[in-house]
C-alpha cells in the first residue's frame, strides 16, 4: 500500500488498548440490531489494526464498516480498557479520505439519496445558501451538515426557516438593563439553529442579555465541522476550526445551545491537530467553549429556583433525552436535570435508557436510515414508558431525529430544546 498511514498512526495507541473482551457489544446500538462483529468497537478496532499491520486495505467494505458507527461512545464509556474507539474510527475515516478522497466513503450511499430528484432539489437549494462555507460546485452538497442531508427520505422534518438566524440578529447585544456587562460571551449558532431553529437562537441571546451578559454573534463564524471532520475530512475540518477560532476573539466564553457543536468545538484538540501549534490553539479555544446547559448551571450559577416555566408547559410532564455529545463527550448529565427539576409547574420523569443514542449519529442516519429507525424505536419505547407530554433535550441534531421518530411512531409527544421551556 502506498499510503503513509499518518492519520492512523496517530491512533495506533488507542487501537492497541483493546483487549478484545467483547463487553462493548452489550452497549453498542448498532451491534444490538445487527449482532455482527464488524458492527461493534472490537471488530472495527481489529480491522483498523490489520490496516496498520499492512494486512488489510481500505476496500469499499472497509469504508462501510468504519462508516457504520454512530460515534455515540457508549462502548467507550463502558470499556474496561478505556479504548477510544471514536478516535480510532474517525482516524480511520480521515486516513481513508486522505488516501482515496472523500467520495470513496460517501459515494455509494450518497448516490442512493441523490437518486431522489425532489430531495436532490432541496439539497441544491440549501447548498446554494452554504456558499459562505464552501466554494460552489457539487462538492459542497456533500459537505452539507448531516442533519440537513437527512431531509427527504420521507422524513418528518422541520422546515427550513424563511429567514436564517444570522440575518435576524445583531452582532453585538448589550445587557438589557443598560448596565456594564458582567461578562462578554460569544454566541455560536450552529447550522441547525441558524437554518431551522432561529427562534432558539434568539431565545438564548435574550436569556443571557436579560442577566447582564453581553452577547456577541460574530458573522464570520462557520459550521462547527462535526459533519465534516467526523466523516474524515480533516482538511476542511481544520479550515473551519481556524475560521471559528478567528471569529471569536476577545470573549470570556463561547456558548452554544447545540450539544453537538459544543462538543465538536471543544474536541478540535482531540481529533484534528496536525502539529503542535494547532494542538495549542485548539486546546486554548476548547477551554472557552461551554454548552448552554453547563454555562447556565456551572458558570452563571443561575439560581434555578428563580427560573420561570413558560405558560404553555404548565402542568406538563417532561422527560429528558441525553445527547451523546453531552453525556459522554462532555460529561454533562446533572445540569439539564437540575434545571428540569427546578422548574415549578413541570413534572420530570426519567426515561429508561435516557442515555441511549437516538440513532441519528450524523451521516449515519443519512446512509443507514433503516438502522436509525430501529435504534430510535428503542428510544421511543423509553419515552412511551414515561407517559411524558414533552421530550426535552439540548441538541438540535437529536431534536430533528426525535421529531421524525415520534411522528413516525404516531406518538403524541412534542420535542423541545431545554431553553424553550424557560421564560
Amino acid at each position, binding site marked *: 500500500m502506498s499510503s503513509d498511514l499518518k492519520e492512523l498512526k496517530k491512533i495506533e495507541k488507542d487501537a492497541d*488498548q483493546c*483487549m478484545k473482551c*467483547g*463487553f462493548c457489544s*452489550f452497549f453498542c446500538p448498532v451491534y444490538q440490531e445487527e449482532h*455482527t*462483529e464488524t458492527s461493534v468497537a472490537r471488530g472495527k478496532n481489529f480491522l483498523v489494526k490489520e490496516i496498520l499491520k499492512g494486512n488489510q486495505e481500505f476496500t469499499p467494505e472497509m469504508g462501510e464498516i468504519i462508516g457504520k458507527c454512530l460515534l455515540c461512545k457508549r462502548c467507550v464509556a463502558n470499556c474496561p480498557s478505556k479504548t477510544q474507539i471514536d478516535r480510532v474510527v474517525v482516524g480511520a475515516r480521515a486516513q481513508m479520505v486522505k488516501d482515496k478522497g472523500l467520495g470513496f466513503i460517501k459515494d455509494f450511499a450518497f448516490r442512493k439519496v441523490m437518486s431522489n430528484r425532489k430531495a436532490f432539489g432541496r439539497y441544491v437549494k440549501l447548498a446554494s445558501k452554504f456558499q459562505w462555507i464552501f466554494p460552489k460546485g457539487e462538492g459542497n452538497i456533500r459537505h452539507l451538515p448531516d442533519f440537513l442531508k437527512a431531509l427527504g427520505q420521507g422524513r418528518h422534518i422541520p422546515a427550513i426557516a424563511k429567514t436564517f438566524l444570522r440575518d435576524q440578529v445583531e452582532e453585538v447585544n448589550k445587557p438589557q438593563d443598560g448596565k456594564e456587562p458582567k461578562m462578554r460571551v460569544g454566541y455560536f449558532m450552529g447550522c441547525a439553529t441558524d437554518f431551522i431553529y432561529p427562534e432558539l437562537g434568539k431565545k438564548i441571546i435574550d436569556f443571557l442579555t436579560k442577566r447582564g451578559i453581553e452577547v456577541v454573534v460574530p458573522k464570520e463564524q462557520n459550521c462547527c465541522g462535526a459533519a465534516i471532520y467526523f466523516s474524515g475530512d480533516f482538511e476542511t475540518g481544520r479550515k473551519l476550526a481556524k475560521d471559528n477560532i478567528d471569529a471569536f476573539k476577545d470573549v470570556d466564553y463561547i456558548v452554544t445551545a447545540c450539544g453537538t457543536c459544543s462538543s465538536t468545538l471543544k474536541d478540535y484538540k482531540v481529533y484534528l491537530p496536525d502539529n503542535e501549534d494547532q494542538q495549542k490553539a485548539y486546546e486554548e479555544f476548547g477551554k472557552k467553549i461551554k454548552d448552554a446547559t453547563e454555562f447556565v448551571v456551572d458558570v452563571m450559577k443561575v439560581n434555578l429556583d428563580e427560573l420561570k416555566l413558560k405558560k404553555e408547559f404548565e402542568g406538563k410532564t417532561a422527560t429528558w433525552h441525553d445527547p451523546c455529545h453531552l453525556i459522554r463527550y462532555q460529561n454533562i448529565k446533572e445540569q439539564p436535570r437540575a434545571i428540569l427539576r427546578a422548574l415549578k409547574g413541570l413534572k420530570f420523569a426519567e426515561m429508561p435508557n435516557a442515555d441511549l443514542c437516538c440513532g441519528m449519529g450524523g451521516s449515519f442516519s443519512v446512509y443507514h436510515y433503516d438502522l436509525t429507525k430501529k435504534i430510535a424505536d428503542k428510544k421511543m419505547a423509553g419515552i412511551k414508558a414515561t407517559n411524558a407530554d414533552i421530550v426535552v433535550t439540548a441538541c438540535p441534531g437529536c431534536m430533528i431525529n426525535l421529531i421524525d421518530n415520534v411522528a413516525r411512531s404516531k406518538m403524541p409527544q412534542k420535542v423541545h430544546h431545554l431553553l424553550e421551556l424557560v421564560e
Partner: protein
Amino acid sequence: MIKESLIGEFEKIVGKENVLTSKESLKAYSYDGTSSWIHEPDVVLFPTSTAEIAAIMKIANAEKVPVTPRGGGTNVSGGSVPIQGGIVLALAKFNKIIRIDKENMTATVEPGVVLMDLNMALAREGLFFPPDPQSFLGATLGGIIAENAGGPACVKYGVTKQYILGLEVVLPTGDVINVGGRTLKNVVGYDLTMLFVSSEGTLGVVTKAELKLNPMPPARKTIMAVYDDVAKAGENVFRVLENGVIPNKIELLDNWVINRIEEMMPMGLPKDADAVLLFETDGIPEAVEKETEKIVEIAKKYGATDVRVAKDQAEADKYWLARRAGFAAVFGKAPTVFAEDVTVPRGRIPDLIRKCKELAKKYAVEIVVLGHAGDGNLHPSILTDIKNKDHYDRAVKAMDEIIEGAVELGGVISGEHGIGLEKQKFFRKIENPKVIDIMKGIKALVDPNNIMNPGKIW
C-alpha cells in the same frame, strides 16, 4: 477452502444476509478473547433455529467441513477461533429467552442469549441465574455452558453445571437430541447433560437450554478487608468458611492490581496494602447482617489490618467495579500477558501465592495475582512481551512452574477458561493418558468425522 457451491446451499438455509464471506468479515471472526490465536474461517453463518443448524451440520458432515460454534467470542482459551478454517457458526442472532417459569423456577433459552440480558429479564421476575462469569456483558448461555463458566459467586452457588437441567443439542451428524429434562432430579442412565457442559463446542451445538434458577436474594452487603501480606489474605478465605459463613463471593486483588486500578480510576483503595479481599454476602436481611458481623470479626482476628463494610450499594458497586477492572488493568500494562487459570483447593491458596512470589523473584518477571480466591481459582498473571525473547522465555518458564506447582498442591490447570488451544500442552502433560483416551473415544463416537471445533482440547 470450502467448496464454492456450498455457499449457495447455506444461503438457501439461513438466507443470504446470514452468510458472510467477505475478507473483512472473515477477519472479524478470526479471534476471540485471547491474544495469541488467530485464524480466519471460510464462511460465517448466522442460523436462528435448530432446524437450520441441523441442516448446516448435515452438509458439513457430508463434506467434512470444520464447524466452530461461537457465542460472544469472549472465551480466553482460543475456544471459538476456527483454527482449521471452515464454518464459524455464529449464534448471536439465535437469542430468544423462550420462557421464564416462575412456578418451577426455570428458564428456557436459545444459545445466543447474553447473560446480562437474561439477568435483566430474570430480575424483573424476582429470580436469578447464579453462575456469574465476569464477562456477563458479552458471554452467551451457549458459551457459558460449553465452558462450564463460573464467577465469584461460585463460592456459595457453584458453577454452570449445577444449573443446567436439560439441553437440546444438534450433533455433528445433524441429528437432534434432548438430554436431561426440566426436573431437579433425573437419573435416567448416564448423565449426558454433563457431557455437553464444558465440551468446548467439540461434541455438538447447544441449541436450547433449560436453566435452574434461584429466587433473587433480597439483601446483600460488601466487605473489604485489607492485608499487609497477601498470604494472610489467602488464609483468611478458609478461616471465614471454617467459621461457618459462606459468603457468595470472596475475591482477591494484590498490591500491583490495586495500584493499577487506582491509576485507572481512583476510588480510595489502600495503595500500600499487600492485598485486599472483597467479600459479598447475600440472603435475607437479618442473615446478611449477622454474616457481615462475623466476617468482620474473623478477618480482624486473622490479621486484616483494616476492614470496611460498604455503607450503601453505591460504595459496594465501586468495589466490584474495581474488581472487574482488574483484568483490564493487567492486560493494559504489558504487550503480552499470560492470564493463568489454575485452581487449587482453598486451603492451599497461601501456598500457591507464595509459590508465585518465589517464581517472580527466580525469573525476574512480574507476576500479579487477582481472582476468585473463594474457590481457589486465582488467575496469576505474568506480564511479558513476546517481542523480548529473553524476557518471554523466562515468563514461559515461570508459567510452566506455576502450573506444575498448582498441580502438586492438588489443583487443576484450568478452573473456568477451559483448555481450548491455550492449555493444550499442559493438558497433555498432566492428564492421565487413560482419561484422555476415554475422552477421545467419546469424541470419535459422537463426531466420527472430527468436524466439531477440531484442533481443540488435545
